[in-house]
Every structure is written in structure tokens, then in C-alpha cells.
């Protein structure tokens, strides 16, 4: 029995720790595990989660994307401003295309020209921040007419489930299928695991990495649409620091930054954990910044235990 328990802990240590945390908070704060609170938390994490879905593809392919936070800011400004100019339909199309273009630019430099992903996306972070300010002129933009169907993405609901959660869940399901069951998904794992071997087995690594970044741009665009619709406006700093929160979620889920392993399900779990930790600590009466300390501890512990389980020992 104890052997089984050890094996369970090793395989699903993260899940066990998470369940323990949930139980602990639920005992202390009655409101924690009520359906309405759970849905609230899920709605709150759906924007970070949406971005994390695309970033997971990039990370599994062995690369990094630090530009998604700035990209979210720019795209939110675009979707809000264009909704005022063109109406929601065209605005959403423009936003999706802009996200795709930003992702394609990253993908071109990292995938095709093989430049260092960290620096390319860092440069992009700075560049997109500049572009946002140039576009908005530094002022906040607001949706002029809040009664159009543009409000549905952030504020609507389907059978009592908030629309952001529905969009996030559907996207997660589709992308989980893509990553796990399609040729493209397997190519992502192959490139992230061993790029040379992938190339020799006939996979065009350049194209695969390029496509992963395009996907990351696209999911960020969807996140921006939810954000713009939720807030009915956009500030010039709205996505600042999101890139690191997104990465924290991906890592917490157990996707390795070295590439070649991970899954959409793990990312969803990681992002949900971030949300429930934040919510739980707030409900227990701690100031919001205590969650950062807890996140620090949990990231280190989760990744360390994960690595230790793979190696069979805990110290390197």
C-alpha cells in the first residue's frame, strides 16, 4: 500500500499537493469551494490561461516567449480601438491577424533565422510596448458603445458558465488534441526533445518553431479579445508582467523549460493552481502579495520534486 502511495505521489505529486492545499483552505474559508467562487477563479485565470496554451507549444518546442505580455497590451488596445472604429466583427478579425503577425515575426527570427529566443522575444517585449504607446498616444482607450455583442466574450455566460471560461476550456480541448494527436503536435515534441534527430527524421524544425510562435500570437489575441471585452477598455500597461505569470503557470504545471515534455492539461492545472492559491490566500485574509511568496515556494518545490522523480534522487 505504501509503495502504491509513493508511486502515486511521484507520478501525481503536484495534484496531491494541490488537493491538500484546496482542502486546507476549504476548512478555513467556507466560501472557497462554492460553485460561484470556483467559477470566479476560473474566469480570472482564463486570460492568463489562454496565453499559456500557446506558450506551452513554444516551451515544448524548446523555446521561450517573453513577448506575450506586451503583445496582450497592444492587442487589447487594438481590439478596443478598432471596435469603436469598425464594429466588433472586423475588430476581432484585425486583432487575430495582428496577433498572428506578431507571432510570425517572433517565429521568423527564432525559427527560420535561428536567433536566440530569449533575446528575440525580449526585444519584442520592448518593441511592442513602444508600438502600443505609439498607437494609443499614451492615453487609455475605452469601448464607446458597451451594448454590442462585443461584451459577450468577457461578460457573457453560457448555461451559467462565464464566457471566458467556456472559450478557455474549448481552446484548451482543441489545443490538447492538436498537441497530443496530430502530426504537428508530435513534431513539436520531437523538435523540443532533440532537434537534430527531428531534422534527420524529416521534420522541418524551422517551420515547426515558426508555427508554434504563430499559435502563441493567436492565443494571445484571443486573450486580448476577452480582456478588452471584460474591461471594456485598455490601459497601456494592462499586460505588463503577464509574460512571467504565464511562464510561472506553465512551469508549475510541470512542463520542462528544456523542451520535449509537457502537456496542455498540465498547463491548465498549473494556471488553475496559481488562481486558486491567490484566491485561497485572499479568502483566508492574507494581503495579496503573500501569494507571491507562496508561488515562489511552490514553483521551486514542484519543479524540484518533478526533477527528482525523473532522476530517482532528489539532489543533482
Amino acid at each position: 500500500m505504501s509503495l502504491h502511495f509513493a508511486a502515486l505521489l511521484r507520478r501525481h505529486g503536484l495534484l496531491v499537493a494541490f488537493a491538500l492545499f484546496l482542502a486546507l483552505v476549504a476548512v478555513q474559508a467556507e466560501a472557497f469551494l462554492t460553485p460561484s467562487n470556483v467559477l470566479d477563479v476560473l474566469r480570472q485565470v482564463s486570460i492568463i490561461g489562454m496565453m499559456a496554451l500557446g506558450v506551452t507549444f513554444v516551451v515544448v518546442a524548446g523555446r521561450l516567449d517573453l513577448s506575450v505580455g506586451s503583445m496582450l497590451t497592444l492587442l487589447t488596445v487594438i481590439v478596443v480601438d478598432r471596435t469603436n472604429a469598425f464594429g466588433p466583427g472586423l475588430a476581432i478579425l484585425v486583432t487575430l491577424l495582428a496577433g498572428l503577425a506578431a507571432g510570425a515575426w517572433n517565429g521568423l527570427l527564432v525559427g527560420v533565422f535561428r536567433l536566440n529566443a530569449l533575446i528575440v522575444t525580449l526585444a519584442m517585449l520592448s518593441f511592442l510596448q513602444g508600438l502600443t504607446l505609439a498607437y494609443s498616444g499614451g492615453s487609455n482607450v475605452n469601448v464607446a458603445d458597451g451594448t454590442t455583442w462585443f461584451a459577450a466574450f468577457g461578460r457573457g455566460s453560457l448555461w451559467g458558465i462565464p464566457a471566458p471560461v467556456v472559450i478557455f476550456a474549448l481552446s484548451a480541448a482543441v489545443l490538447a488534441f492538436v498537441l497530443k494527436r496530430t502530426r504537428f503536435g508530435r513534431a513539436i515534441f520531437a523538435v523540443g526533445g532533440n532537434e537534430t534527430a527531428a531534422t534527420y527524421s524529416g521534420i522541418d524544425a524551422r517551420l515547426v518553431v515558426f508555427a508554434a510562435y504563430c499559435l502563441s500570437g493567436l492565443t494571445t489575441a484571443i486573450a486580448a479579445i476577452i480582456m478588452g471585452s471584460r474591461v471594456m477598455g485598455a490601459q497601456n500597461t494592462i499586460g505588463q508582467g503577464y509574460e512571467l505569470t504565464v511562464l510561472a503557470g506553465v512551469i508549475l504545471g510541470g512542463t520542462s523549460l528544456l523542451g520535449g515534455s509537457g502537456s496542455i492539461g498540465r498547463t491548465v492545472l498549473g494556471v488553475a493552481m496559481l488562481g486558486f492559491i491567490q484566491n485561497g490566500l485572499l479568502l483566508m485574509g492574507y494581503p495579496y502579495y503573500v501569494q507571491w511568496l507562496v508561488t515562489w515556494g511552490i514553483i521551486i518545490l514542484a519543479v524540484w520534486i518533478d526533477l527528482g522523480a525523473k532522476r530517482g534522487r532528489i539532489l543533482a
Partner: protein
Amino acid sequence: MSVAETPRRAVAAGDWIMRNHIWVFLALTVAVFSFASPYFLTVNNLGNLLTQGAFIGILAVGMTLVILNGEIDLSVGATLALSCALAIGLQTSIGTWPAVIAALLAGAGLGLLNGLVVALSGMHSFVVTLGALIGIRGLVFVYTGENALMVEDFAYTEIAEVYLGPLSLTALVFFGLAAAFQWLLTNTRHGRETYAVGDNVAAAHDAGINVKRHKIVNFTICGTMAAVAGILLSMRLGTAEPNAGRIWELWTIIAVVLGGTRLSGGYGSLWMTVGGVLTLAVLRNGLRLLNTPNYVELMVMGGVLLLALALDRALLTREGAR
């Protein structure tokens, strides 16, 4: 001198320029801004520019060692904020200099913690220090209670107001630390082995180098440098803001990479980093003097970084072709 020597010399000169492209680039930016703005090439402005750049510079000194080792430290901005807060907040209870020493020790301790976790767990330093970035910022907020701390005795802000000609104490500390650690890199065993570990960990390990010890030492140095920058910032501002140093880690990495040090480790120097820090400072200062909006600055930074990366790639390809 034979005919064949001239092209070879030209090639050598070309190589030198490509390897030290940052200094050529710095000279170019200085020249451009000198022509563009009458206020740029004044002793006063250059002195200010060096002081402004020195904070990122001091962070970059520690970061360079960590990057040469093949690792990265994302937590320097948060560590800077914590040291800044401790140096000011502890003054009333334990006195000025003990508070400064405590701030220094806190930085060193957090660096040591990062180093120990990286070395013992075998985790990617990006993950470890990303966690630390989030957590240390939490510590800052817990300590300051979200408020900006203000120094009670303003004599404290006079400490850093020491000038050697146009050079402020902050700038002098930056140049002094860069020179000292450059000496450490080229003339000590720890320095040489730092390059060896960054270039090829497995080979370094097989050659009998204690890889873990070098990483721990360099992370500790990096944390200490962040504390030094934080203490100097607290002296300059007289206040400690909980959000101080946010995304400075990214500017620091940009400065190091701009200088020509490679993120993959094993290649680079503190001279390059000084060049990168100065170029960044000149660009920011010069663009502001020309009254360019903030967004141009951000876009130019992004462009320059990509340029540096492309140059480095060109150099690597040439070396590979030979």
C-alpha cells in the same frame, strides 16, 4: 611587407571590429547625439548619464558572471528593491551603517539561496530565479507593507554625493567593480574556471572543476551586486519604493547581451558589459535630450538588441566557416 599581408591585416581589423562591435557602436551613437543635440556632449550631461547608467551597470556586473557561467538571474531587480527597503527601513532601529550591512547581507544571502537551489536541484536557473523574482518582490511588499519608506535623517542621502570631477560615487563604484571583477575573471582560478564551466559543463566537470561551487559563488556575487545597486539607489533617492527595480532585470540582460557576452555562456567579458551599459545609457539619455517620445526609445532598444544578436550570429558563422 608583402602584398599578401595587407588583406590579412584588413581581415584582422574586421575581426577586431566585429568582436568589439559594442565600442564602435558606442562611438557612433556618441557622435550622432553630439551632432544632434548641443546639450549632449557637455561634462554635466555625461556625468549625469554615467550616474543614471551605473545602477543597471552594477547589476550587469554580477549578471555577466552568472551568464558567463551559462546561467541567468532574473531576480536582481527584486533583490535591489529589497536591499533598498532594508537599508532605509532598518536605519531607525539599528543605525545607518548596520542597516546598510544588513541590506548587503540580504542580497548576498538571496544570491546564495539562488545558487544553492540551482546547484543542488539541477533545475534550470531561469525557473529558479523566475520564482525568486516573484517571491522576493513579495518579501519587499511584506516588509514595506506596500508603502514607500522614507529616510528619516537626510544626511544619509549626502553619503553618495561624492564626486571625482564629473564622476559620481555611484559611477565610480560601477567602474571600480567592473575593473575588479574583470581582474578576477582573467587573473584568478575562479575566473578562468567560470569560463570553462560556461563553455562546456561536462568537460569542466571531467577536468576536476567543482562546477557547483562556481555557480554558487557567482550567484552570491550577483545577489551582492544587486544589493550594492539597491543601497546606492536608496542613498540617491532617500526613499524605498516597493516597486523599485521592476523589469530592471530585463534591461540588465539587454545591456550584457548588447555588449557581446553570449547567453549560452563561456564567451564575454566585463569590458564588453561596460560597453553595453554605456551604449544603453547613451541611447536613453540622447533620445530624451532630442525630445523623442518614450515609445521611440522602447522601439529603438528592441531594434538595437536584434542588431546585436544578428551581428553575433554573423561572427559565429564566420568563425564556423573558417
